[in-house]
């Protein structure tokens, strides 16, 4: 399984480059919503925690897993919610102009 490690490194490298290229284009106007959005996306760590709880290999791991799922889910919900609330406020003056 030596190849999976290298595969994973390739994926990390490519994703980091995509991240740099995509995020460089984000207008400074939206840096705050950007941060709350990446925060919500980062909470995808919840999938690891869900498996930990679901597999229930030991009480210890299940307890830590439950706390981890709670923490990550609150980021998912709160992160998307506040990002959308912020973005809703950004209005252009152009449509009102003739």
């Amino acid at each position: 399984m030596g190849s999976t490690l290298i595969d994973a490194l390739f994926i990390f490298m490519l994703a980091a480059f995509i991240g740099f290229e995509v995020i460089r284009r984000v207008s400074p106007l939206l840096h705050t919503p950007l941060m709350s959005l990446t925060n919500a996306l980062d909470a995808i760590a919840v999938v690891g925690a869900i498996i930990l709880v679901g597999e229930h290999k030991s009480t210890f791991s299940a307890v830590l897993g439950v706390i981890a799922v709670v923490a990550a889910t609150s980021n998912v919900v709160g992160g998307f919610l506040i990002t959308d609330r912020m973005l809703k406020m950004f209005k252009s003056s152009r449509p009102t102009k003739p």
Partner: protein
Amino acid sequence: MTDFAGNQQIIEVIYLIASALFILSLKWMSSPATARRGVWAGEIGMVLAIGGTLLHHGIVDYKWIAIALVLGTIIGIPLGMVQMTAVPQRTALSHAFGALCVSLVGTAEFYLRSPNVPRFMMSVLCMEVILGGLTFTGSLMAAGKLQEILPQRPLTYKGQNFVNFLLLGGAIVIAVLLVHDPSQKQLFPFMLTIAVIFGVLLVVPIGGADMPTVISLLNAYAGLSAAAMGFVLDSKLLIIAGALDGSSGLILSVIMSKAMNRSFTNVLFGAFGQVQAASAGAQEAKTARSATAEEAAAILLAANKVVIVPGYGMAVAQAQHKVRELYDALTKRGVDVRFAIHPVAGRMPGHMNVLLAEADIPYDRLIDMEDINGEFPQTDLALVIGANDVTNPAARSDASSPIYGMPILDVDKARTVMVIKRGMSPGFAGIDNPLYYLDRTLMLFGDAKAFVGSLVREVAGGHG
């Protein structure tokens, strides 16, 4: 068996789609016109990923998953409904939660797998737990400072860098020992404890003015720790999401550190925050001219092009809605009004834009520093509200100034400058601002909200 393998494949395909949606989500954030679509893409990707995970063959216990998901949602909703001025501390808190999740999963995985942990896996796991642990407490400290539960001023003591490096070194030594022999379970709690203490000591010495940089940096750490978790769990989705978050945090850290004129290595090692409380120095007898709201309104109405320079002081005074009224009144009279936004205006990257957007100021009127600086010479009037150091021309000209080299808004190049300020006291960093003593500068003394309110009355009243 075939069913099991088929199931795994479906999950992988779902994760693949979710990854694509995450990248699209960030791509659509490039412009306010498409940004809300980006949130949708992210949400769909997240729901798919969580749904797909529940199909995982090894899951036997759904009850606790459901309880935890519901509990997390209950905590998450109020965190998503905070006031816009509280967004920085909310963001810091969510970095803490993200890091908590990552370090708990890392800890659980270690105890489940030890002693059969391959070397590479163990080193990534240590990185995950150290980064997660320090980001957890560091972000809690940052949130505490932003919420003003903790003192905003830098808490420094002698040899703190030495203590910090000693701690970090200790954690790394334990990590190396663990990589060498993963059966040494008793070492693990020490490593975690050191990381947690290190996080506290890293952020406590940093002052409130540096928070935009700190938050961005903690964002990058949170992303990297999540990517490390992806390596441990062999989850490509997690590696991708962590890499995206990490690069986002890193880019924002670089932008913030440039805007604060700190070198990037300074930021990386957290050796920042030492804003010298510059001695007021020998005060020369300089005179500033002041004006009343009536006079100021007349000047505003005579101008064709006005640039308003908002600082955090404006948000503290809750003056943004009054500023919007002023914007409306002036626009109605045919004055071209725009806003100049310094990258570190506010308490986190882009914070000022959000505060002004909340007050219904159109986003195409919010211009960032690089784009507006060339236009100050053609500007009739620059109106500074609650901003100080980011307008200080000493940053350009006075090599002895503590903020020398920091990029500033070239407000002093405008034909006339008006500054709304409580008094002549120096700003946050304790640095005198020569802008206030220029011949073309008029000081408008008073509370930002009240003064802008009287400007609105004068401007609107003069019309009727």
